[in-house]
Every structure is written in structure tokens, then in C-alpha cells.
């Protein structure tokens, strides 16, 4: 054998720079290797709290992003008709002056005429601050069309939700159940968690109509009918209650189960009963008399009835013990046999109560009571868009949290664990602010959590203050706004006309809008005088997405490897249950074209507009750029965007003065910082004084905020009371019945809106989208490597429909909904709910976009379901058309879609087939 001598120790690279990934929303730490100044290899950062060294398919492909031919090259001004793609390059000074010439008059006369919405923005505490300084009430990010039901359902119930808010105790859980997790949020952490469970043989159950990805490795699969998860969960509750398998001690101590519900007829009926000091109270089992809810040694009586007022526990038990929730009563609707539902309930109870675990760690609760150990119920859950993107998603999310609470798993070992700054009850969040005045900043932060009708964003005449109608009677808890209603409302001039639409990283002319075809028309529609109905559109993106052609002014952004960013605890941080965390991005390579980081551009605009927080008294810029802001902005005394290395010496954590060397310290530390929760504070966080005091010290609260979980939601009941006619602020009559149903203070299930009508009109099939793990979020779709893995999408059809329609490989289907039709390629899939079809989201592209060739499969055979989904529900004879959204939060109800399928035989391209977009960058040729 003459094996050649090979060098097994080649030099790897000249330098490694550690920053934060942005190929999706996970924010993993990455090691970017550089050779001769160019990015040569990207791998996960082993020290990073989010990914601990691993990296997904997208992350490693980031190297193709920083050289992508679709990158915009310089600022552009539209010269032809809107949508024609005719632009001329202009300088940054011209671009910014033009933007200011549009914005400044608006600020001086009617700030609400600027609508500033950001898409997949990871700097919302900054962009929101800018919008507040400008004075417009019209600001939000993309949460309204993503997963606000998940976030808000959690906040209103337990003070946190899944993903950034909290996660399963992966190291201890014995049974993990996931509902509606479509391979996306969050990506690597869930995969790592599943890997841990698999390595120790813990059990994984998937509840999902589609058995791909995470659900493919589940030990058991419940192929549920879309939109019925809430019904299944309430049936599980029924079984648990019926058998007495509920954690009574947990319910009595940590939830509002022992509080009394006012039974007196009138304006306070159904609110939590308060004492003379306006405090809720419990009945102490030791005395049978009222006692403070937070009193030391108090033993709350879950079964108390006091002067005719019964406990929340009794209301809850009575509701779910009803035969309406028996497995036999829900099985057909859920598509799951009753015996399977009973078996799942039994499994949950067995693990929670027969396999409980204990950590020998004494701790003290907020009442001053001490506990020798931490008792854990090792059942955990995760859920995401599959349950939240329905018009009953808020209540379903609440139902899931109620199930967790009743099993006693939240914040116990083996269960669900909050990640700082969560837990944070509704009371610790701001309320919405919307009051505008010419030339003045907004009265406070835009987005928040409504406690009652008095906090709705309504003008004195009762009309919506916001263009997206967030925080109105149509969707009172719209904590993330309704980005999907922005363009339709602006086009309709309902509730009013705006002048300038300012969008960042949001592909609203394609996959981020419902009813895409119509939205493209709205963006180009003109009035009788020939003027655009939406007069001006400014867009910032790094790539030539479909939206670019519809803007009047393009502000080209950098790629994520060329910019500063801040993953802040004021925003959406990267914490773990045992540590608060934040991180940065920094330019590990410099842009080779005339582009600027959007956040720095916003600051520049702010200076040109004279926005107070961005200028010095002499009018000069207070912050040189976004990096300067990250280090030197003070949100409230001692608190800035980053918690690490604060103070002049960089040795303070959480609170401290600005540190001019803070970013350098973060870079030195691998791009992130962690503040560790003390050992005694690691579980029972909402009630654990060690945690509460640490949270104050680390700047998440100004004072300890212990609270009880809200099985009974008083804010919701306040809206029901209003709908029943109580109180001075009254909803319109046509919304009363809907509010009474949707704002039920106990979790409830109702069929998704439009479901019955769709089914009655001949649209029997559910249609869903999922995000592929290797390509979710559209900016990955033009990636040279990733598109080789998944350059096509099919409509996946279950066996029953496949056979009934006589489909063969190569066939296309005509897919129709009440909103229209598309013709798309099909593929057979057996591991699928028998009444459900689905496809991958955002593979389909418009010709001419993303620097792809006109013959690219994404632009020919690729397709979107968006054309089938209306942003409005059908008219029902009352002349009203409601938004296709959850009635509580306004979350876009993407997954309520119902369709009809017909085999149309072999075709060579999907329809609708739009005219190619004129190219704003040349078609990509070879790999850079």
C-alpha cells in the first residue's frame, strides 16, 4: 500500500469572529472563520447559551448569504410606475433627504399618517422607541401574523409562554408533548431538547395533523384535525378532573383557583371578589374565614363558598366536568378516538403524579413560607403556530397552559421553566399608548397588555386610533398589532387614510400577506385623480425580495454578518431558565456595496427629523450609529439595551452606567453575556423570593412581582361584562355576542371562524403550511445551497383524497377556497390527517425576484397558499366583514383555511403565474 501522505492538520482559518446568526429567529452563536478577509466557514459557538455549538442547515449556509446575488447594492428611487421595478440609484444623502421631505410634514401635522411596521425585526425595543419619538401610533412588528396567540395566551395565563419566554426542563422531563410545532420556533433549542430526551429514553408525543420533522420522531402521534387542539386539551382536563388527578396543593398555593368569583348580579359579576382594601382574598381552611391571598401560613380552601361566592376552582371544575368535554363527545371533531384521548390523559397523570421528582433545595416563597425541597412533575409541553394560527388560538393557548397548571408542572423540576425576564404577569407589562399630537412624541410605548375596555386604543369618537385597528373591540388583546391588516386598511382608508408606509424586512407583496394577489393591487391602486391610494412607500431590506418593486424609495440594509445588532432583554432576549442572556451582532466583514445597517439609518433619519431622544441640544447627533446607541442609550436609570459589562469599569451586571467599551467586552466574551440565576431561585420563579430579588437586582423589575396564575382571567371577564351591557365603555352591538363567546374568562373552545360556512359551501379539506427546518423564513430561499435541498414545494395529499381523486405523480390539483383558486403540483403523503393537505411555506417565488433565473423551479412550479386566504371573513348577511383573525388578539388565522381539491392532471407550472418582476439586481450566475 502506498497511501499518499496527507496533511491532517491544515490551518483552519486566519481568524475566528464570534457573532450571532440571523438565518432564522433563533439567534444562535456562530464562529465565523475568515481567510484573507473573506468568510470561509461558519460553525456553531460551543459556549453560546442558545445552541451550545450546534448549528442548523441554514446557519452553516450563511456563507452563501453574504455573497448572494440578490443583495441590494445602493439606495433606489422609483422612476416608473409602482410595481414596474423601474428605479434609479441615488446617494444616501438624497435618499434620506427624500424620506425626511415626506416624513417631516407628517410629524408636524398628523404623525399618525406615517405607519412604520417592521417584519422579522430583532430590534423592536429600538424601532418602537424610534416610532414613539416620531409620534405615530402606527407601529408594530410581525407578531400579529405570526404567533401572538401563543405569546398573549401565555402572558394572560401564566406570565410567559413558549420559546423566548420559557421551555421544557429538558434535563429532567420524562414526558414531552408538543402541539402544532411546525418545525420552526424555536429551531435548534427544540432539536437539542429532543435529542436529550431521546438520549435518555424519555417519551415524546406529537399532536399535529402532519407527521414530519419533530413529529416524525415522536414515540406516539395524534394526527389531530386542525383547529381542534383546544377541544382535545379540554377533554384531557375533563378526564383528569373526573379522576381527581389534579395538583390541588399547587392550585391552592400558586394559582387564582382559591380566589372567589363575585356572584352578585350587576357590573361586578364574575370579577374576582375584593376586600375593602381592593385586594383579592381566600378562605383560610384553618379558620373558615377570609384571609389575605398572600398571607404567611394561610391555607387557601379551594372548595370554599363565601356569602354565595364560589372559588375559581369550583367554576373551573364544574365547566370541564361537563359531559360536553367527555372524550366520547369530542372524538369525532378532533379526529382522535375517545380511547386514545383517555390513554393520553392517563399517561399525563401517571408521569405527573406517580413519577414525581424532587430536588433537595430549600427555598422561601413570597408569603414567607419555607419549603425543604422542590417537588417536580416531569411532564412538559411545547406549542407553536399550529395551535395559535387559528381564530380560536388564544383560547387554545390558554387551555394548554391550564392543563400545565392543573398538572402542577409550571416552574417545577421536570416541567415548564420560565426564562428571564419572564415570569412577568400582565401587570408588569405596559398598556398600549396611542395618543398623538403634532410635533410631539407618542404618549408612551405602542404595544402592551390591555386590562380592561378603558385601555382600548379608541379615539374619543370610539373609532380605532391605530391603522391596523389593534386594541379595539374586534381584537382587544392585540399585543403585537395586526400587520396583516395594515395594507388592506390603508387601502380602504379604514379607519383613516395614511400618507407614508414605512416597512422593514417584511415581504408584504408576497408570502407575508394574506390574499397576496389583492395586496399587490392595493399597493399599486390609484384614486380618481391618478394618485396612489397609499401615497408613499419606503422599504428597507437587504435583498431583492418581491416587496422591493412596490416601494418608492429603497433603503438597502446590510446582511447579518456586516452589521451591529443587539439581542436585548428589553426586547426578545436569548435567556435560558438558569440565566438571563443577551447578545450582539457586529460587522465580522465589511459591506462591499453602498448599503447601511437599517438601525443606523433610522438614527440618521431621527437626527434629520430632530427627534428629541436622538439629538443633542445643539441639534447634532446624540448617537454616531446603532453601535453607539447600543452602548450609550439609557432606557431608565442604570438600564440600557445590554445587561453585561455595565458601568465605567465594565464590572456591573443588569444595572449600571453606560460603558463605552461594552461592545468590545461582548466581542471578547464571544458575542453574548449571561447573568446566572442563583441556585435557590431556579424553580418556582413567580413565587420564589430568591428569584424575585435577583430579578430586581438584574433590572427586570423595579420591585418583586409575585403573582398567581390566572386560571380565571379577570381582564377577559371585564370585556364580557361590557358586552353584557355593563360599564360606561360599550362595544358596538354587532360585536356583543362574539365578545361574550371569545372573552370567556375560562378557556373555551369554539369552531374556527368560517369553518362551518366553508364546510357547508363545499370546502371540506383543511389546508396548512409548514416551515421547512432547512429553510424557514423567506430570506433563506434564494440561498445557493439550501435551494438545492428544497427548491420545490408540493401540495401533500393524504391517502384518502389521493385515491378518491385518482392522483398520480406529476399531477396538478386545482385548489379552491372561498377566496379563489390555485393550480399546484401534488405529492402523496400517508403520515397525514386524512382531511388535511399542506405545503412548505415560502418556497414559491415570483419570477424576477431574489436574483433567481426565470426558469427557477421556485418561480414556476413553486406556489403559495396565501392566494386562497382572505384577510377578511366572508360577509354573513349583516353587511359586516371581519378580519380573518383571532377575535381576542387579532392573530392572523392562516390555518383556518378550508379548500376543495380537484385533479387536473399533469401540468408544467403552477398558477397564478404572475408577470416577471423587472430585476433590480442582475440574475445570479455562478457562486461567488
Amino acid at each position, binding site marked *: 500500500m502506498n497511501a499518499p501522505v*496527507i496533511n*491532517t*492538520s491544515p490551518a*483552519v482559518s486566519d481568524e475566528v469572529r464570534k457573532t450571532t446568526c440571523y438565518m432564522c429567529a433563533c439567534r444562535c452563536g456562530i464562529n465565523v472563520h475568515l481567510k484573507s478577509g473573506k468568510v*470561509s*466557514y461558519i*460553525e*456553531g459557538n460551543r459556549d453560546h447559551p442558545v445552541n451550545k*455549538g*450546534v448549528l*442548523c*442547515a*441554514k446557519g*452553516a*449556509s450563511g456563507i452563501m448569504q453574504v455573497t448572494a446575488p440578490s443583495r441590494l447594492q445602493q439606495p433606489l428611487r422609483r422612476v416608473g410606475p409602482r410595481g414596474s421595478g423601474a428605479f434609479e440609484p441615488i446617494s444616501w444623502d438624497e435618499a434620506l433627504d427624500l424620506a425626511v421631505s415626506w416624513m417631516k410634514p407628517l410629524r408636524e401635522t398628523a404623525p399618525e399618517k406615517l405607519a412604520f411596521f417592521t417584519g422579522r425585526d430583532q430590534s423592536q425595543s429600538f424601532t418602537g422607541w424610534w416610532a414613539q419619538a416620531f409620534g405615530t401610533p402606527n407601529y408594530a412588528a410581525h407578531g400579529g401574523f405570526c404567533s401572538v396567540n401563543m405569546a398573549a395566551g401565555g402572558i394572560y395565563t401564566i406570565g410567559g409562554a413558549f420559546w423566548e419566554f420559557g421551555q421544557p426542563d429538558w434535563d429532567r422531563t420524562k414526558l414531552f408533548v408538543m402541539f402544532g410545532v411546525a418545525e420552526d420556533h424555536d429551531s*435548534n433549542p427544540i432539536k*437539542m431538547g429532543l*435529542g436529550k430526551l*431521546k438520549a435518555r429514553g424519555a417519551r415524546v408525543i406529537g399532536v399535529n395533523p402532519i*407527521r*414530519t*420533522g*419533530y413529529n*416524525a*420522531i415522536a*414515540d*406516539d*402521534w395524534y394526527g389531530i384535525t386542525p383547529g381542534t387542539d383546544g377541544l382535545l386539551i379540554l377533554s384531557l382536563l375533563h*378526564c383528569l378532573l*373526573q*379522576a*381527581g*388527578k389534579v395538583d*390541588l396543593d399547587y392550585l*391552592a398555593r400558586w394559582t387564582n383557583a382559591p380566589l372567589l368569583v363575585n356572584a352578585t348580579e350587576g357590573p361586578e359579576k364574575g370579577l374576582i371578589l375584593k376586600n375593602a382594601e381592593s385586594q383579592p382574598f381566600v378562605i383560610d381552611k384553618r379558620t373558615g374565614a377570609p384571609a389575605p391571598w398572600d398571607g404567611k401560613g394561610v391555607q387557601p380552601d*379551594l372548595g370554599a363558598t363565601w356569602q354565595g361566592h364560589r372559588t375559581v376552582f*369550583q367554576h373551573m*371544575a364544574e365547566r370541564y*366536568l361537563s*359531559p360536553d368535554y367527555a372524550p366520547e363527545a369530542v372524538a369525532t371533531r378532533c379526529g382522535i378516538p375517545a380511547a386514545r384521548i383517555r*390513554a393520553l390523559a*392517563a*399517561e399525563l397523570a401517571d408521569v405527573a403524579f406517580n413519577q414525581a421528582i424532587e430536588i433537595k433545595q430549600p427555598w422561601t416563597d413570597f408569603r414567607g413560607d419555607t419549603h425543604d425541597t422542590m417537588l417536580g412533575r416531569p411532564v412538559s409541553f411545547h406549542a407553536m403556530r399550529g395551535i395559535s394560527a387559528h381564530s380560536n388560538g388564544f383560547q387554545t393557548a390558554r387551555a394548554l397552559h391550564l392543563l400545565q397548571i392543573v398538572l402542577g408542572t409550571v416552574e417545577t423540576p421536570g416541567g415548564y421553566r420560565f426564562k428571564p425576564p419572564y415570569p412577568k404577569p400582565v401587570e408588569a407589562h405596559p398598556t398600549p399608548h396611542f395618543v398623538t399630537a403634532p410635533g410631539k412624541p407618542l404618549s408612551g410605548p405602542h404595544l402592551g397588555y390591555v386590562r380592561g375596555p378603558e385601555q382600548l386604543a379608541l379615539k374619543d369618537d370610539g373609532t380605532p386610533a391605530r391603522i391596523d385597528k389593534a386594541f379595539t373591540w374586534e381584537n382587544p388583546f392585540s399585543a403585537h398589532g395586526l400587520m396583516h391588516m395594515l395594507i388592506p386598511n390603508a387601502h380602504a382608508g379604514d379607519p383613516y387614510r395614511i400618507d407614508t408606509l414605512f416597512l422593514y424586512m417584511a415581504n408584504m407583496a408576497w408570502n407575508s400577506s394574506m390574499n397576496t394577489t389583492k395586496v399587490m393591487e392595493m399597493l399599486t391602486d390609484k384614486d380618481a385623480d391618478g394618485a396612489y391610494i397609499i401615497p408613499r412607500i419606503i422599504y428597507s431590506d437587504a435583498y431583492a425580495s418581491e416587496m422591493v418593486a412596490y416601494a418608492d424609495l429603497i433603503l438597502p440594509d446590510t446582511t447579518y454578518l456586516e452589521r451591529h445588532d443587539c439581542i436585548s432583554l428589553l426586547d426578545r432576549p436569548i435567556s435560558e431558565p438558569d440565566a438571563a442572556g443577551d447578545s450582539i451582532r457586529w460587522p465580522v466583514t465589511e459591506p462591499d456595496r453602498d448599503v447601511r445597517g437599517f438601525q443606523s439609518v433610522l438614527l440618521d433619519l431621527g437626527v434629520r427629523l430632530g427627534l428629541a431622544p436622538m439629538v443633542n441640544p445643539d441639534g447634532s447627533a446624540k448617537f454616531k450609529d446603532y453601535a453607539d446607541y447600543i452602548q450609550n442609550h439609557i432606557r431608565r436609570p442604570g438600564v440600557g439595551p445590554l445587561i453585561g459589562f455595565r458601568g465605567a469599569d465594565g464590572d456591573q451586571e443588569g444595572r449600571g452606567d453606560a460603558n463605552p467599551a461594552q461592545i468590545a467586552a461582548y466581542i471578547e466574551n464571544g458575542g453574548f453575556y449571561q447573568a446566572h440565576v442563583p441556585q435557590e431561585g431556579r424553580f418556582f420563579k413567580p413565587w420564589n423570593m430568591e428569584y424575585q430579588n435577583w430579578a430586581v437586582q438584574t433590572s427586570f423589575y423595579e420591585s418583586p412581582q409575585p403573582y398567581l396564575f390566572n386560571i380565571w382571567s379577570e381582564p377577559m371577564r371585564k370585556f364580557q361584562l361590557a358586552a353584557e351591557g355593563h360599564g360606561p365603555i360599550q362595544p358596538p352591538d354587532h360585536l356583543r355576542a362574539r365578545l361574550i363567546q371569545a372573552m370567556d374568562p375560562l378557556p373555551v373552545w369554539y369552531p374556527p371562524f368560517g369553518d362551518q360556512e366553508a364546510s357547508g359551501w363545499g370546502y371540506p379539506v383543511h389546508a396548512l403550511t409548514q416551515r421547512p*427546518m*432547512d429553510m424557514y423564513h423567506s430570506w433563506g430561499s434564494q440561498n*445557493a*445551497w439550501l*435551494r*438545492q*435541498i428544497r427548491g420545490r414545494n408540493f401540495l401533500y395529499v393524504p391517502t384518502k383524497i389521493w385515491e378518491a381523486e385518482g392522483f398520480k405523480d406529476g399531477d396538478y390539483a386545482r385548489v379552491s377556497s372561498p377566496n379563489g383558486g390555485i393550480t399546484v403540483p401534488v405529492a402523496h*403523503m400517508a*403520515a*397525514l390527517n386524512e382531511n388535511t393537505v399542506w405545503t412548505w411555506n415560502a418556497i414559491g417565488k415570483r419570477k424576477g425576484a431574489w*436574483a*433567481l*433565473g426565470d426558469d427557477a*423551479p421556485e418561480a414556476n412550479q413553486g406556489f403559495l397558499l396565501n392566494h386562497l386566504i382572505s384577510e377578511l371573513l366572508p360577509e354573513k348577511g349583516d353587511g359586516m366583514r371581519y378580519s380573518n383573525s383571532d377575535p381576542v388578539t387579532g392573530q392572523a388565522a392562516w390555518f383556518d383555511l378550508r379548500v376543495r381539491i380537484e385533479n387536473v392532471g399533469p401540468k408544467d407550472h403552477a398558477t397564478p403565474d404572475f408577470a416577471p418582476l423587472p430585476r433590480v439586481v442582475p*440574475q*445570479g450566475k455562478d*457562486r461567488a
Partner: protein
Amino acid sequence: MTQLPTHTDKKLGLAIDLDTCVGCQACVTACKGWNDQGYGAALSDQNPYGADPSGTFLNRVHSYQVQPDIGAAQIINFPRSCLHCEDAPCVTVCPTGASYKRTEDGIVLVNEDACIGCGLCAWACPYGARELDQAAGVMKKCTLCVDRIYNENLPEEDREPACVRTCPTGARHFGDFADPDSNVSKLVAERGGYDLMPDLKTKPTNKYLPPRKKDIPQEASLLAPLLDIQATGFAGWLDKVLGKLG
């Protein structure tokens, strides 16, 4: 014809856990990224922004549907790369000696200087684990990251194949199958790791750990109601349930 060694000191390879692989493709692009700048010629991409983009990948993941006799259909995600066979037909078929199996660790490699791009080895490999790079004109295959696993410029913990280092679920394990006490040997013993297509007698080094049985109900007995609520009413239930708290 190229000779295979009669013995290798180590049998380095991968144990791939099909019970854990979610098919996320992370290993595919980590491999592409490392090997694009690593051993031998870069991994080129043809027509990367047009129709039918096709490039060289040393590792690919496929998804298969399985319909058991009883129960719901399942999906198995199946990563595929060179198995570093003991009786590697790709080596013995090589007319120039470019394909060879290393005596020290059993890794099957291509000496690109000697490769004439004839493609015989790809034809001989029953696993489809070799790809001829269209730009370089040489045969590319998994090197088991031979330029990582011994690389003294890398921290010790990083001296493993790129696909193993990146795998988010930890479904890929790297080790020495010649050592019965190695992590991979133990996993194979515990989990019934198996050879791919053993009847071909290629004696693959890599092993696959099979999916665990799915859709089997747990033993937990169904929950018995505390009492007949219809008969005793809610008050009776409440007394009974709260009595437990005692």
C-alpha cells in the same frame, strides 16, 4: 484494481441514530461548508441560481415513508454518506489506485492527484455515496473529516467530523468501532445498530441505530373516575377530591 488493507488499526466511523434524526439537513450543509474549503478540491455548484441547481454534497438526508401493518404511517429520516466499508467495492474497482482505505483508521479516501474522474467507483458503490465534482473533475466523498479529526490547529473537542459537531439532536456519533468500549460500539450494542444492506457483504463501518417502536400505548392504566358525577353531583365530586388534600 486497488488492494484493500487486510487489517486496519482502528475502524473509525459514524453511528447514526434514526430514532433521533429529525431530517433537519444541518449535517448536509455543515459538511458542505467544511469540505468546500477543506480536503481536496472545493465542492462546486452548477447553476446555483437557475433551474435544476446541482452541486457536490458528500452527505445527503432523505426522508422515507413507512406504512406499518398496523397503525399510522411513519416518516424515517435517513442521512446517507460513505460508510467506509471494510470490503469497499469502490476501492477495488479503482483503476489508478486513487481510491484507497487507510490502514491506520480505515477511512476510505480519494487521492485526487491520482483520480482520473472515470466514475467507476461511484458505479461500484451500492450506497450512492460518491459524487464526481463537475468543476474539478475528480471524485468527491466523505473523508470522515480527516482534516479535522487529527487537526492540531483545532481545539481537542472539535476534532470530530463537521456533521457530528453540528448535529442539533445529537443523532450522529463518531468513534472507533474496533474498540468494543468506544461510545459507538456501546451504542450499537445497546440499540441494535445494524449494517446497511448487509447482504452486499461490503461490511460497512458506519452503523445505523434503528427507530424505536412507535405508536405503542403506554402501560398507564386508564383513569378511573372518583365517583359517578352524574349520580352524586358536583358537590359530591368536590368533597371527594378535596378530601384528598386533607
